[in-house]
C-alpha cells in the first residue's frame, strides 16, 4: 500500500547515529512487526504506539504493518523511537504529511493516552541530529528546555502524539493540553563550598590551588579527620567554569542517565565521589543492552574523587588508567562499542595505614609494617605514575586552628581568580602546541631547548636523580608542577624556589 518514512537517533554512549524509521502497510492479517536490531523496549513500542494512535482519534489499518529501523545492522535501544514509529505509521496511512515528517528528526516516549513523556537522552539526541546536519527536531515538551540548549537547530516541542500529528498536517481537533508529568527531580544547583572553611591547612590548600591551575591529578594522604574530603569537595569551586561544549557534554551524560536537565547550562564542573565498594562497571560504565555512563563519564570535565582509595578494588583503580591517558572511556560489548568523554581531574585520598593513625602525632598506630605495605600496594604504581601532586595532610592542632581563625586564608573567590590567571598564562605560553594545561605537556617537550630550565635551577632535581631518589618519570612530573607554580606566581619561568617547592609537593608518598 504505502510506506512512511521519518528519522530518529540511536544513541551509543554520547555518539548518536541517525536512524531511518520506515513503515510499510501491506495487505495481510493484522500484525505489527518491528525489525532492525531493536531491543526489548523498542519491540514493546507496538503496544504504546497502537494505543496512542487510537487514543489520538487516528486509526491503524487492520493490515500487516512492518516497521524497519535502518541501518538494520546497528543495535538500537530505548523508548525515544516511539514518536518516530507512530508518525511513520500515520504517514503510511496518509493521516499526516509524509513530506513533512521526512524533514524532521523525532524523539520521545509515548504514553497509552498519546501523551509524550519526558525521555532520557534527549540532549545527546538533539546534539547528534545537529552534528548529522539535521535542521528540525521534535521532542516532548517536558524536554523542551534541555533540547533548546543545543544551538543552531530548530526544536519543536509537542505534548502529545495528537499535537505532533497536527503539526505535520493531520486534520484533527486540538486536544486538551496534557498536564506535564511530574518532573523528575533535577540536580540541585551545586552549592559552592567555601574554601575559607578549611582552617590551618595552608600547604594543602596551596596544593589544591596548584592542582586546579595545572590540571594535575592529586593524591591526599593523611589521618582521618584531617580534612581530605573537605579539600577535595572544594576543588570544583575553584576550577574555571565549563565552556559551552564541555557543559553540553556534562549535561548530555546526565540526560543519558535519566536526570532532568534544566533550561540553563550548568557550568560548575561536576564532582563525583563513588563509594569504595563500587564495581568496575559502576565506575567506568556498562550494561548489556543500554550502555550507561559510569562515575568517570559523569565526572568528565570535572573532578573524580576516590575517597579511601586503597579500599577500592584494584581492578577498579586500574580501569582508570586508560581514560586518564586518553580522556575517553570506551566500553566494548558484544554488539556495540560506546564512547564517553572522560577527561577528569582525579583526586585520591587515603589514610596512611589501615587504622589511619600512622604518623599522626600523639596517637598510636598498631598496624604491622606488612599491613601498611599491603594497604598501599593496592594503588598500583602505574596509576600513581599519573599523579603529579602527592600531598600529606596533617591534623590541625587546636593552636593552629585558632591562629588560622584569626587571619583568614584563601577563599574560593581569591583562589579561583589565581587559578584563572595561571591557566591563561599557561595557555598563552602553550599556544601553537596541542596542549593547554601543564598537566598534559609531555616531559620530553619540557626538557627540550626552548623551555628547558637553567642547570642551576634544576640542580635539586638532578641531584635527586643521581641519588636514585627520583625516577625519570618523577623528574618530569616535578618539572610540570614547577611550571604551574611559576604560572601561579605570574613568573616568566620557574626559579629554584618553584622547583624545590614542586619537589616538596610530591614527596608525600615515596613512589
Amino acid at each position, binding site marked *: 500500500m504505502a510506506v512512511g518514512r521519518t528519522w530518529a537517533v540511536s544513541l551509543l554512549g554520547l555518539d548518536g547515529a541517525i536512524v531511518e524509521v520506515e513503515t510499510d502497510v501491506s*495487505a*495481510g*492479517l*493484522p500484525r505489527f512487526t518491528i525489525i532492525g536490531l531493536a531491543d526489548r523496549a523498542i519491540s514493546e513500542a507496538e503496544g504504546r504506539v497502537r494505543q496512542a494512535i487510537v487514543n489520538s482519534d487516528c486509526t491503524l489499518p*487492520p*493490515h500487516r504493518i512492518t516497521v524497519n529501523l535502518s541501518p538494520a545492522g546497528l543495535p538500537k535501544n530505548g523508548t525515544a523511537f516511539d514518536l518516530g514509529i507512530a508518525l511513520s505509521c500515520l504517514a503510511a496511512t496518509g493521516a499526516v504529511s509524509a513530506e513533512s515528517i521526512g524533514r524532521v528528526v523525532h524523539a520521545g516516549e509515548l504514553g497509552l493516552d498519546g501523551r509524550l513523556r519526558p525521555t532520557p537522552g534527549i540532549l545527546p539526541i538533539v546534539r547528534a541530529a545537529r552534528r548529522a546536519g539535521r535542521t528540525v527536531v521534535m521532542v516532548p515538551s517536558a524536554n523542551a528546555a534541555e533540547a533548546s540548549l543545543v544551538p543552531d537547530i530548530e526544536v519543536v516541542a509537542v505534548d502529545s502524539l495528537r499535537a505532533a500529528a497536527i503539526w505535520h498536517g493531520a486534520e484533527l481537533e486540538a486536544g486538551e493540553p496534557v498536564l506535564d508529568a511530574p518532573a523528575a527531580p533535577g540536580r540541585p544547583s551545586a552549592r559552592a563550598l567555601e574554601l575559607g572553611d578549611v582552617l590551618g591547612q595552608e600547604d594543602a590548600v596551596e596544593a589544591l590551588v596548584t592542582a586546579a591551575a595545572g590540571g594535575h591529578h592529586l593524591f591526599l594522604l593523611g589521618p582521618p579527620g584531617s580534612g581530605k574530603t573537605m579539600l577535595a569537595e572544594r576543588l570544583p569551586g575553584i576550577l574555571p567554569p565549563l565552556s559551552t561544549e564541555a557543559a553540553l557534554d556534562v549535561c548530555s551524560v546526565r540526560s543519558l542517565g535519566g536526570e532532568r536537565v534544566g533550561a540553563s547550562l550548568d557550568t560548575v564542573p561536576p564532582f563525583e565521589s563513588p563509594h569504595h565498594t563500587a564495581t568496575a562497571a559502576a565506575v567506568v560504565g556498562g550494561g548489556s543492552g543500554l550502555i550507561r555512563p559510569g562515575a568517570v563519564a559523569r565526572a568528565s570535565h570535572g573532578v573524580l574523587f576516590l575517597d579511601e582509595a586503597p579500599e577500592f578494588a584494584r581492578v577498579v583503580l586500574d580501569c582508570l588508567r586508560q581514560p586518564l591517558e586518553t580522556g575517553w572511556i570506551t566500553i566494548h560489548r558484544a554488539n556495540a562499542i560506546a564512547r564517553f568523554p572522560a577527561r577528569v581531574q582525579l583526586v585520591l585520598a587515603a589514610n596512611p595505614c589501615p587504622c589511619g593513625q600512622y604518623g599522626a602525632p600523639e596517637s598510636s598506630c598498631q598496624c604491622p609494617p606488612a599491613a601498611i605495605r599491603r594497604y598501599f600496594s593496592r594503588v598500583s604504581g602505574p596509576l600513581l605514575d599519573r599523579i603529579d601532586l602527592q600531598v600529606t595532610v596533617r591534623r590541625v592542632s587546636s593552636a593552629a586552628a585558632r591562629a588560622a581563625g584569626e587571619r583568614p586564608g584563601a577563599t574560593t573567590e581569591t583562589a579561583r581568580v589565581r587559578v584563572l590567571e595561571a591557566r591563561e598564562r599557561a595557555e598563552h605560553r602553550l599556544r601553537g602546541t596541542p596542549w593547554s594545561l601543564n598537566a598534559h605537556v609531555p616531559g620530553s617537550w619540557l626538557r627540550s631547548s626552548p623551555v628547558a630550565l637553567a642547570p642551576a635551577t634544576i640542580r635539586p632535581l638532578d641531584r635527586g636523580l643521581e641519588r636514585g631518589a627520583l625516577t625519570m618519570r618523577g623528574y618530569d612530573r616535578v618539572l610540570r608542577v614547577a611550571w604551574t607554580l611559576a604560572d601561579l606566581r605570574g613568573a616568566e619561568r620557574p626559579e629554584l624556589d618553584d622547583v624545590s617547592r614542586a619537589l616538596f609537593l610530591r614527596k608525600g608518598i615515596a613512589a
Partner: protein
Amino acid sequence: MARKDELGRRGEDLAVDFLERAGYEILARNWRTRTGEVDIVARMDGITAIVEVKTRTSVASGHPFEAVTFRKLKRLRALAAEWSASDPRRSAVLRIDVVGVVAPADAPAVVEHLTGVM
C-alpha cells in the same frame, strides 16, 4: 438460532455474494470434517481458495481480521490439505483467504477480502 450464529450466517451470505460478484465459483459452503469447518471453498483461474469469514457489527472491539489467530490459521491449513485430498475438483494451487464483514444494524455492510494470508 443464537444471535451470534445468525450474524455469522448473514456474514457468510454477504461474503458469498461478494466472491461471486468478483468472479469466483463457489465449490462448497460449511464444509465439515473432524478437524473443523471451512466457511467457503471458492475457485477462480485454477486457484482454489479456502475462505474463512469473520463478521462483526462494529469495530469497537477490533476489526474482524484481528480475530483470525495463529491457531485458526493452522487449522485452516490442515483443512486445506484435507479438502485437497478428498475433493475430485482439486487444483494445483491452494490458497487461504480471509473475508472480513463489518455489518452494522443501521448501515450497509462493508466486506473486505484478504488473499493468501498464509
